[in-house]
């Protein structure tokens, strides 16, 4: 038994649902009690899907136990087949049904439905969502892929494997990588699980190799296909400019084509944006990266090599991906954090004192509580992680998107200088927040506020964030359980503090008070202020 306040991954049948919901013409009959139907809302609300997930739940109740739950399952499967007429059906149990051991696979077999029926054994008490997705996809491939379709395959052809429903930017990554492969003259045979049909999986062997975008989901199947159909698969995940280039070299070699057409993509703006003088201020920014192994590892590399940040923490919640993270952590000389306990992640973030946190929705919330800037780079996802616009993180456009994503929460360099310049102007007011964010509506003040338009600088900066704040419902430090010692500032120190630009003043105050508190000081002098600055300065 493990005390769990929150979990990064759902149970394994949620992984199976992500596969089923990404696909078309597939139906999943799940032996489960009524409450398990909550899973539908993940897809209809978070991803805004306009159709119910293709899942039939048996919703057995206590009174059915021991008598006719098996019969209920059979009826549900039969009805589902008649109603949906799927090309293939998956059957399985959720945690509760696993305990009552009705054997959905055997029951479905006895029904002898006129479509392939794939039994899923997903151990709910030991495995989790990503494992469930991987196992489901592997089972589908094993059952459906027809070796005969390998006949006469072209070398310059591949499948794209990994995208599912509810994935972090899977929709846009797939489009991006498909376009990249097309530029290279590589034919894309099947993209699966999303948006393939079971009948598409039949012809998986027709491609010469597999592109694995999300190893968490597709590696099990890809390994099997490597053995079964002699299809090698890609190892590089094309997140970031460097990785995208390596990926292009890797697929070009597998396909026997010239990599050049894809390598000089005029739309790859990220390297120049990062070299532009304005980006100087990004140098050495302390970032903490946590997420699924694929995204966390790739983004840590982007941070270090392409943004010029300093990665001060790296981890994953996925034990299966621990090896990937360990390798990158070693390169970055970090102790990797492998845990699915968010309280441990919270403690690690607190200890690492990052200026920005890159993680899942949970790390975003942790960062908000601490008043640290943040951006989401990994599942588990939230409705905000499904933007209306195209927003890949893979390929060159993905790298462009990442640049914006990672810069947006930080105060822009140019703006930093201009704010300092205007600070003494009479129309300037510290109370002004960034005007483009409603959440930063200026606090009441007599003086008219300077707006970010006057500041010329791009309005993407969150001035208030450098002020120790954050754009969304910021929770006061006290409420977040951080002790706020009662410290006395002497008047000179007060005056000195006033001279610090307002957008870093909060941080300076906080750091100084923390420094003083940790040393048991009760009075803060100008000395303390600068001691603290030296202590926390990089």
């Amino acid at each position, binding site marked *: *038994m*493990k*005390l*769990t*306040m*929150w*979990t990064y*991954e*759902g*149970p394994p*049948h*949620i992984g199976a649902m992500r596969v089923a919901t990404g696909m078309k013409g597939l139906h999943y009959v799940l032996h489960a*009690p*009524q*409450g*398990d*139907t*909550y*899973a*539908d*809302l*993940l897809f*209809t*609300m978070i991803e*805004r*899907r*306009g*159709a*119910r997930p293709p899942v*039939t*739940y*048996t*919703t*057995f*109740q*206590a*009174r059915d*136990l021991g008598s006719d739950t098996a019969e209920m399952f059979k009826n*549900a499967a039969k*009805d589902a087949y008649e109603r949906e007429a799927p090309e293939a059906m998956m059957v399985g149990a*959720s*945690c*509760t049904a696993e*305990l*009552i051991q009705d054997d959905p696979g055997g029951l479905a077999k006895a029904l002898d439905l006129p479509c392939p029926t794939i039994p899923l054994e997903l*151990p*709910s*008490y*030991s495995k*989790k969502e990503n494992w469930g997705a991987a196992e489901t996809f592997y089972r589908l491939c094993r059952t459906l892929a027809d070796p005969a379709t390998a006949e006469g395959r072209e070398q310059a052809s591949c499948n794209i494997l990994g995208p599912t429903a509810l994935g972090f930017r899977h929709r846009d990554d797939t489009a991006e990588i498909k376009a990249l492969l097309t530029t290279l003259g590589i034919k894309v045979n099947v993209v699966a699980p999303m948006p393939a049909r079971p009948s598409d999986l039949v012809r998986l062997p027709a491609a010469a190799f597999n592109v694995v975008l999300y190893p968490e989901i597709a590696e099990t199947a890809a390994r099997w296909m490597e053995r079964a159909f002699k299809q090698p698969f890609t190892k590089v995940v094309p997140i970031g400019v460097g990785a995208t280039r390596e990926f292009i070299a890797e697929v070009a070699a597998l396909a026997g084509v010239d990599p050049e057409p894809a390598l000089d993509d005029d739309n790859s703006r990220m390297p120049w944006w990062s070299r532009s003088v304005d980006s100087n201020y990004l140098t050495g920014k302390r970032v903490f990266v946590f997420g699924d192994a694929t995204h966390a590892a790739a983004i840590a590399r982007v941070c270090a090599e392409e943004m010029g940040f300093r990665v001060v923490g790296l981890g994953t919640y996925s034990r299966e991906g621990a090896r990937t993270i360990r390798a990158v952590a070693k390169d970055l000389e970090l102790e990797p954090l492998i845990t699915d306990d968010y*309280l441990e992640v919270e403690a690690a973030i607190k200890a690492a004192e990052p200026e920005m946190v890159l993680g899942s*929705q*949970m790390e975003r*919330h942790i960062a*908000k*509580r601490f008043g640290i800037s943040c951006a989401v780079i990994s599942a588990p996802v939230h409705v905000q992680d499904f933007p209306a616009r195209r927003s890949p993180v893979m390929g060159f456009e993905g790298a462009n998107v990442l640049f914006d994503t990672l810069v947006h929460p930080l105060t822009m360099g140019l703006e930093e200088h201009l704010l300092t310049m205007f600070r003494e102007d009479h129309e300037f007011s510290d109370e002004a927040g960034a005007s483009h964010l409603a959440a930063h509506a200026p606090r009441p003040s007599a003086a008219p506020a300077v707006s970010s338009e006057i500041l010329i600088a791009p309005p993407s900066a969150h001035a208030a964030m450098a002020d120790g704040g954050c754009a969304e*419902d910021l*929770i006061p430090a006290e*409420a977040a*359980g951080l002790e706020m010692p009662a410290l006395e500032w002497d008047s000179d120190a007060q005056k000195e503090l006033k001279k610090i630009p307002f957008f870093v003043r909060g941080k300076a105050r906080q750091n100084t008070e923390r420094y003083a508190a940790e040393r048991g000081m009760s009075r803060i002098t100008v000395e303390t202020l600068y001691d603290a600055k030296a202590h926390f300065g990089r």
Partner: protein
Amino acid sequence: MNAPARIKGPTTLVHGPRGGCDRPVLKERGQREVFCGLTGIVWLHRKIQDAFFLVVGSRTCAHLLQSAAGVMIFAEPRFATAVIDERDLAGLADAHDELDRVVTELLARRPDIKLLFLVGSCPSEVIKLDLAKAAERLNRNYHPATRVLAYSGSGIETTFTEGEDACLASLVPDLAATDASQLLLVGALPDIVEDQFLRMLSAMGIDSVAVLPGRNADAMPAVGPNTSYMLLQPFLTETAARLAGRGAQYLPALFPFGAAGTRAFLAAAAARFGVSDETFEAVIAAPEKRAHEAIARHRPTLAGKSISFFPDSQLEPPLARFLAEECDMRPIEVGSPYLHRQHLAEELPRLPQDVRLSEGQDVDRQLARLEDDGPDLTVCGLGLANPLEARGYRTKWAIELIFSPIHGFEQAGDLAELFARPLQRAERLAV
């Protein structure tokens, strides 16, 4: 399945005396698309400020809870799941020892917790982990610093709001005894709404009013033969039965939704405690007027519009009554997971005669009926809302009716607005 608060399944319940309502009810037994009782933790933990809810269940239960709660902003929520793993199932670890260990860990972390609910789930019930026994054992160690109670929120025993019923029912045996004459309001409402009721009752001169649940462990009401209890929510079946078991008298009334519902609810209390008509009218005059005015603002949007309810919270019949009587809407189908004939005795006769009442669920059949009915507005769960919108139906999320303050005079306008907003939005949008 030894949790103390056993909620019987929808169709096995013995019906109370029929309240003069013998209309036909469509009984359904198919796939259900509803939350389980664990969901109640999302609002109950906010209501009882020093209580912690520990679900003994699976990763699914933990995932349901966090998905229903939706947000993760709390530094440390006052609910968690003791996730059963292979070792517990294989008998390698004694589940009771494991539970004790988890509780010890939890209480060491959260010494501020005065009331700990062990909440049963489907897995804990299927493996017959006796949480009532566990609570008894833990009480020997932790009471009086922390009181440990147990109830079932499992999906095989409880549907959505029945989790609150099970929770409140688990409190009843523990309540102190009293012979004093008092009014007991039952149901977890937002404090602000509760206070409105208390203020009005007190203005009428009914001073000894208690509420179940109290706002913290030390503020639980007493109960006895001179207690009259009123239900604020229609789903409190087991709680009511246990209160009756403690000798309390059931005071029937309409549920306090809308101006008429709130008036009738308060009138029942006033009559029972001998409040004069004059006083009663004087007290409710101003808020009732505000309610009428607020509802009137939304009536033009709602009048004449048809509405269907998918079974969700058991609030469906009283809400349909409010919408029909006060907003001039036309309910077509009113589905509820369970119709408690006695508690709905005042409500059901007031529904228009042509309303189709359904109990239980077969989601695909109800979707087919919806297709035939083509209502202007459909009240349904989150799993169905967007798929229905995509098919051209306007929807209202049922869960919002549970999470938002909707009871009483001051909220009557807000309640109407919850239904008006999707219709108004549909009118505005040109994309």
